[in-house]
């Protein structure tokens, strides 16, 4: 008997399979019925494909070659009509494309496409985003977009996505981060992927798409996640990973805890929208820092909290990260950063 070094005990295989017994077989009548129906569909598909091939060659040549040429000509007219209608419809749709968002800045390393096939660099100064547009982020920078309803969406370097409309983005590759802080809760915002969709319920979260899996990580609030088999609610501090159903051994979703200050969120600070500091109340600025860093804002005392509510700050933080801007801004007040541990921002007096 031929054996290789990785052979497995045959008696074990035999034992298991004999206990399992013969595999369940479909009834013969069902098999015959299904085969007949499927075969009809198969024949129709093959026939349709075969008509399309000679049609193309007859359109390319000047003369008809066969006795069936008049039939092919009728089909050609039908296809032409369909093509004309499609072109008119597309043009009409293009005229109706709405601006649904805008980039926060002029990005150099960013490309756009109308069909996810042919890419062009974003024109200098162009920040408008229309529904249906595709974008491909370069490897050197992340980008930030503000939607008409206040939703802030940031795309990580190398991400590819389509802005479908004012309330949904389709992610093809990479990661997107969403912050709905300034957004009134009127209509859900959805991220669609090949494997499923995530819908916000007042949140900060990111969606990461990989080859055979996707993850939804919630920093704040809740996200509803849907795929072909289930609907799940993901809470703050949870990272949920769902796997492609095309796996040979399909895997159940897995979840793990993820801190709001985990390093996975760091890239989002690089593409944060510009923050208008001048004239803001200090407490509002501190809440913004807490949101951007994922840290918990605490005041040393009620007196300090009151002070923050009554202090107005001026100036600009430019492109400083939220964390880095903190000490600078507090310098202009008589408050200090008492503790900026990994998960806490505590503000108080000297």
């Amino acid at each position, binding site marked *: *008997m*031929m*054996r*290789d070094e*990785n*052979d*497995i*005990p*045959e*008696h*074990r*295989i*035999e034992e*298991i*399979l*004999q*206990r*399992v*017994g*013969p*595999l*369940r*077989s*479909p009834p013969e009548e*069902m*098999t015959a*019925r*299904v*085969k007949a*129906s*499927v*075969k009809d*569909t*198969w024949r129709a*598909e*093959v026939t349709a*494909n*075969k008509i399309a091939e000679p049609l193309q060659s007859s359109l390319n040549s000047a003369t008809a070659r066969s006795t069936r040429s008049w039939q092919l000509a009728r089909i050609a007219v039908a296809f032409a009509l369909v093509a004309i209608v499609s072109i008119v419809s597309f043009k009409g749709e293009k005229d109706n494309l709405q601006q649904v968002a805008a980039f926060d800045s002029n990005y150099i390393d960013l490309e756009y496409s109308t069909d996810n096939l042919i890419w062009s660099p974003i024109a200098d100064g162009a920040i408008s985003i229309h529904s249906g547009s595709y974008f491909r982020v370069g490897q050197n920078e992340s980008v930030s977009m503000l939607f008409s309803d206040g939703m802030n969406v940031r795309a990580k370097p190398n991400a590819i996505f389509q802005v479908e409309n004012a309330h949904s983005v389709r992610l093809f590759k990479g990661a997107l981060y969403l912050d709905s802080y300034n957004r009134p809760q009127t209509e859900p915002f959805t991220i669609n992927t090949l494997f499923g969709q995530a819908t916000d319920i007042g949140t900060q979260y990111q969606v990461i798409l990989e080859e055979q899996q996707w993850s939804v990580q919630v920093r704040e609030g809740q996200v509803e996640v849907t795929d*072909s*088999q*289930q609907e799940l609610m993901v809470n703050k501090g949870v990272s949920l990973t769902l796997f492609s*159903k*095309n*796996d*040979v*051994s399909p895997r*159940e979703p897995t979840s793990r805890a993820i801190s709001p200050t985990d390093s996975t969120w760091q890239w989002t600070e690089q593409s944060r929208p510009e923050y208008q500091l001048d004239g803001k109340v200090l407490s509002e600025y501190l809440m913004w820092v807490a949101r951007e860093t994922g840290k918990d804002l605490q005041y040393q005392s009620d007196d300090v909290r009151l002070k923050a509510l009554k202090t107005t700050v001026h100036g600009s933080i430019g492109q400083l990260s939220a964390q880095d801007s903190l000490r600078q801004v507090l310098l202009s007040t008589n408050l200090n950063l008492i503790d900026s541990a990994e998960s806490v921002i505590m503000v108080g007096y000297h």
Partner: protein
Amino acid sequence: MYKDDIALAQSIMSGDERKFDQFFELYFPRLYRFAYTRMKDESQLEDIVQTTLMNAMRNMDKFRGEATMFTWLCQICRNEIAQHYRKLGKSVPTVTADDDVIRPILEALEAESETDPEGQYANHQVKELISEVLDFLPKNYGQALEWKYVWGLSVTEIAERLHVTELAAQSLLARARAAFRSALTQISPQLVPAGQE
């Protein structure tokens, strides 16, 4: 890339009836079993599997060979089942292979007694799972293992059925055992200890 599956898809699209028949005989029974373990309502089983295969015919040009043909068909079938349950307002029953659940069930399979209801249910669960594992093995590995260890066919008889030489049949059985072991090990490392005879 699964080149054999790509070649089969191309043959089917080109109108090769022999290849269509081969495709149907290879995949219909496996798809039937796949849907059977997930459908509580057997009266809809035929519709689900038939619709799955008809959709596969309409979309065969989209098959890229990045997963096996059977995996692709199961994905279509899953969507059909999910739609079916959605229309009924119900959730899809899931099939899991959690090791903490499976290990005691597999241990129960080892036990002699199958007389108590709990033992019978556990055995049924395991049988469904092993059947699924066999169907998900590549090519005709599952079929070959069933012929050899359930029906007791000889290597010669298996070679005749597969239209290959005896040597090729022996080689296929060796690969099938390895694939089966690997798949079982994923669901229960305790089941097949390495090197144990």
